[in-house]
């Protein structure tokens, strides 16, 4: 099958999903930042008592709060969330994730299981890694140009 067909039929579980960083809404912003720095990630998910996602703490929400000038790192992370929370189920097609990213302008999507429980994070990087697999020659060319190993990839971000 080709890329079109795969995007419409392959489920999100086929993507290289990122580790979920689940947070209680009362977690201090300072601890949320530390958790993301430790894991080299850009997004954590606030979950309820049964693990369902209720909010998204991202580098964007942090930037907005910091620029606003009233950020206290001791405040609960629930006070510093993105206005949008995009969720896609593990078995929904990759096209559904692309749709969510496009409609909401988000870079991150929370992946949930059949019961609605948050299980992972994906987003632009996961999608790019998926698409890049269709261009192995291009991967080798660009890896040489940018000076990275085509197998061991660099950090997320930027």
């Amino acid at each position, binding site marked *: 099958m080709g890329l079109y067909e795969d995007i419409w039929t392959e489920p999100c579980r086929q993507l290289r999903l990122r580790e979920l960083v689940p947070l209680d809404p009362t977690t201090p912003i300072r601890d949320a930042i530390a958790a993301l720095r430790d894991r080299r990630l850009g997004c954590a998910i606030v979950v309820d008592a049964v693990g369902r996602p209720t909010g998204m703490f991202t*580098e*964007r929400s942090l930037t907005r709060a*910091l620029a606003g000038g009233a950020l206290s790192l001791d405040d609960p992370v629930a006070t510093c969330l993105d206005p949008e929370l995009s969720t896609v189920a593990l078995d929904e097609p990759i096209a559904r994730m692309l749709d969510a990213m496009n409609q909401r302008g988000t870079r991150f999507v929370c992946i949930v299981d059949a019961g609605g429980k948050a299980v992972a994070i994906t987003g*632009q990087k996961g999608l790019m890694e998926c698409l890049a697999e269709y261009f192995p020659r291009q991967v080798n060319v660009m890896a040489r140009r940018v000076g990275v190993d085509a197998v061991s990839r*660099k950090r997320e971000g*930027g």
Partner: protein
Amino acid sequence: MELESVLAEKTVECITSRPYTSVSPDTCLKMALETLVELDVGCLMIEESGRLVGVFSEWDVLHRVAGNFSDAELESVSVSEVMSRDPTYVYESDSVAAVLTVLALCGCRHVPVLAADDTVAGIVSPKRLAAFLHDEVADRSPR
């Protein structure tokens, strides 16, 4: 045409890469933060004499700025002290597939776009890339 062919043949110019926002290396962190928010962008290009010397993104805010500087320091420290130096870039003439692979390889979310003379020409952002891919994919039914 197959999507693989579309992505291999279309160039970066087909993904909107303008407008872009750049600031000088001596811009203070507070101003850089405010610029990110006011313009609703995720990445600033740091330009000096028309040349790209770095990028400053929300990633840098999370991983290098938050909690590390006092309010006074945010107004005195320049963005060049925390920016990501020597960012990976693409040329306007590169294919969309080249951009996708750069993003996959480097893990960055924004890729500066340079003209043939190495001056800054634009930036490919996640939002612009998602819109481009969505347009290419959404109207085509599975075969």
